[in-house]
């Protein structure tokens, strides 16, 4: 019979961002997830990313489905409106909200069960639409909240705690997103603070849908030996595509980069993303290359992490809909109720 209290604001940090807010404006309530859960680490990075990007938290909406992962929006950005909806349906709720108010910045948090199983249909259609939305999957290969059953991202051959072996192929959410037309697709690991932070910041700057699949070990049900989503396994098999650095539009581009080995992507808002290649030569704007990469790493039992695909300038869904600039939800009556003459005209046509 617990009540989650708003976490008492910690002693204010000196550091403030460009809005003169300190990080406490980006914190959430106290987590009720297990100690050590990857999801908590991700919440921390979300807090950091919004803080460092200087986003007005009142502009943010945070949405989710149902699951341990889907609880996380309560654990960051308390000043933002939150919506913990129903299982697998975050995308539609987020879509509606963005239609109502295009000035919002939406982050949707989901789980691999929430997205990969019951929610895969809404996932598919969200990817097609390229709605402005950060769609973050906290991916632990299992259903945490219902006690550890395999999810559709569980790898072929991975073992459950009770020894049962998964014999279905995993759904690779990144590969699907790319196939379906998503414009920012990244994979990361809850344990890789730096990479995840850069990716989140880039996603905040991105204009369309960002799909971020973050491997986030479930320490309670899926962290044993034999699991390919255990902390140890992921750490050992994380295969970063390269180094990801992000320079927001309000900072000087002081990054030194060699054009040969680093891809520089100009985001829609003027920010810059620098992707320094390591072993691979890959081009994050080439869909087929991205697909190949994902298949090959998967076949090796590894996780390619980093920004896998990016298409920074594609029209987003709100542009396609040709909406007025103001939030639809806040238009005054005079702009949404046609005048009497319109009714008269309509009536005349029917007489």
């Amino acid at each position, binding site marked *: 019979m617990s009540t989650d*209290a708003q976490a008492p604001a910690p002693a204010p940090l000196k550091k403030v961002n460009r809005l003169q807010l300190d990080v406490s404006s980006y914190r959430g309530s106290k987590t009720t997830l297990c100690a050590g859960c990857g999801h908590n680490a991700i919440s921390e990075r979300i807090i950091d990313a919004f803080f460092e990007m200087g986003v007005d938290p009142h502009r943010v909406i945070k949405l989710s489905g149902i699951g341990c992962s889907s609880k996380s929006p309560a654990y960051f950005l308390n000043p933002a409106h939150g919506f913990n909806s129903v299982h697998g349906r975050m995308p*539609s709720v987020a879509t509606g909200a963005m239609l109502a108010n295009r000035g919002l910045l939406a982050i949707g948090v989901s789980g691999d069960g929430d997205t990969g199983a019951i929610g895969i249909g809404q996932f598919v259609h969200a990817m097609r639409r390229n709605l402005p939305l950060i769609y973050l999957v906290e991916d632990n290969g299992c259903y945490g909240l219902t006690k550890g059953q395999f999810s559709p991202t569980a790898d072929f051959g991975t073992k459950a705690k009770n020894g049962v072996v998964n014999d279905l192929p995993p759904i690779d959410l990144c590969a699907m997103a790319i196939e379906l037309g998503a414009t920012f697709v990244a994979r990361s690991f809850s344990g890789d603070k730096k990479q995840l932070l850069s990716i989140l910041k880039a996603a905040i700057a991105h204009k369309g849908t960002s799909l971020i699949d973050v491997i986030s070990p479930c320490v309670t049900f899926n962290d044993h030996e034999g699991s390919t989503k255990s902390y140890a396994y992921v750490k050992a098999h994380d295969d970063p595509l390269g180094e990801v650095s992000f320079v927001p539009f309000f900072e000087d581009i002081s990054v030194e980069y060699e054009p040969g080995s680093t891809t520089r992507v100009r985001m829609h808002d003027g920010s810059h993303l620098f992707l320094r290649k390591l072993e691979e030569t890959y081009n994050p704007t080439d869909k087929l290359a991205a697909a190949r990469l994902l298949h090959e790493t998967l076949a090796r039992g590894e996780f390619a992490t980093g920004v896998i695909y990016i298409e920074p300038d594609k029209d987003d869904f709100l542009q396609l809909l040709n909406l007025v600039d103001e939030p639809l939800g806040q238009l005054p009556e005079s702009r*949404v109720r046609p005048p009497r003459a319109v009714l008269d005209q309509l009536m005349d046509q029917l007489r």
Partner: protein
Amino acid sequence: MSSTLPASEPQQAQASASVTNDFSIQIATVNGSGSQTANLVLLRTLFQMGIPVSGKNMFPSNIAGLPTWYTIRANRRGYISRKKEIDLLVAMNPETARDDVMGLEPGCAVVYDAPLRLDTLRSDLVFYAVPFDKIVAEVCTDAKLRRLVKNMVYDGVLAELLSMDAGEMQQALARQLGKKPKALALNQAALEAGRTWASEHLTKADPFRVERMDKTTGQILIEGNTAAAMGCLFAGVTVVAWYPITPSSSLPETLIRYLRKYRMDPETGKATFAVVQAEDEIASLGMVIGASWAGARAMTSTSGPGISLMSEFAGLAYYAEVPAVVFDVQRVGPSTGLPTRTAQGDILFAAFNSHGDTKNVVLLPGSVEECYEMSMASFDLAERLQTVVFVLSDLDLGMNTWMSKPFDYPEKPIDRGKVLDAEGVKALGGTWGRYRDLDGDGIPYRTLPGSGAPAYFTRGSGHNDMALYTERPDDYTKNVDRLARKFETAKSLVPQPVVEDVAGTQIAIIAYGTTHFAVEESRDQLREEHGVEVAYLRLRAYPFPATVHEFIRRYDRVYVVEQNRDGQMLGLLRIEGEPASAVRLRSVLHYNGLPIDARSITDGILAQEKAGNA
């Protein structure tokens, strides 16, 4: 006709001589054959002549090639519900012609395609054989077009037989085809050819005829879905998410047309609305909920299978208190059922749609005018009550063409309900909590994302006054008791029932939706044919205000007339009503997919009256 109609109806008493402005025509064709234009021209001509009419399309659930029937009823007293008996049959479909003819009452007239040789089937009907192909061939050289134009020939024939006004008919045709001059000319020729041929070859042998009246002056002809779309337009809808389904699709599709025409920002040319054809009904309602939550006026429209898919989200909207408007244009269930037939079968399911003590507001438009008005009301109610509102129309209302007085421009401004901005919250001096009942009406205040007002966390799981997560027993009961209180409040906000008390009678009818028109006629039948006076209450919404229970208390036998098998509204009245009144309630049901007719009600009531306590 008319040997089937009771002798007591005055205009039939003189019979055989002539029956003016009181008959129904059934046109049997094949769908996809373009007969709809011809049928609407007929309907409109009668309407323009001032004669009360209604048109009902009985079409198959496929796209082309199957039998379809269009029925036009003209009635000088203004009855516009379905009439069971056909007086005049236009038999164009070889596949059904035999059955169509065999089903007629003696004395009816049949216009038929000559090669069908229907006159050999019966000797108690009036037959008019018309060589359609021959007539068409003369006016239409393009063999491909003949199939379409052929239909206009029967309009000409009927015009002649029934003495319809030629000028009105030309004008009606022009209205239908005005924008296509070539088609117009061709059809005009066909019309004339039909009329001419008929005047030259047919001898009038049936009693039916029309005569100009003035009963439709100033009125409009419209479908309920069009009316509802108009209502949404003037309600200021801003977000529409939908998924195609018969018989609902024409509502959002018409709305899209209106929005594109009337809701583009004049300065920027941009849209003051967003319409999304979603991937399914679950996503549709999810988008509506997200949009309403973020401040839009949002709606979706569907039919039975759609509301079955929406249950989970409906429960979320109820419990998390998010406005949502859901139009359910009812068709025949269960399951896929009869997608192109009408019913009122989603009452109980809509009212209790979702697990675990969910209760929803249900509006029950009974006319095209109410489709328009209740569409507007539904948004106001959804936002004021912060809950999901189901608007239960049906196929008959939504897709058929109805006469109506013109709609009124809304007098009241839009009601956005209890929404607070930053100042509003401040003004409350710390008493605000998202789910706190400050006014005693059970309705809390909300804030909107992005408005700068204090945020809260919306969830379908347990929450307290402050929208914080809780599993405490007392928090739970407090919250759901408030929801129950809010539902009480709804009783006075929803459209109130229309009550027609009758002194001295013990009999009453309760009905709702399209059943209304048949009830009106049935009450006249009961009075005129049997001297039985019947009081009447027309329900317009659930939850029921006290008026309903008081009405029931005043009559011994209250017949709940509805179009479903299980007497669903009767059930709901039993649940919500006064226990002592349960004995007063009885059922008259009609559920074969066709719109209910007055005679069925009259017979149903009389049978029970005779059997029991008359």
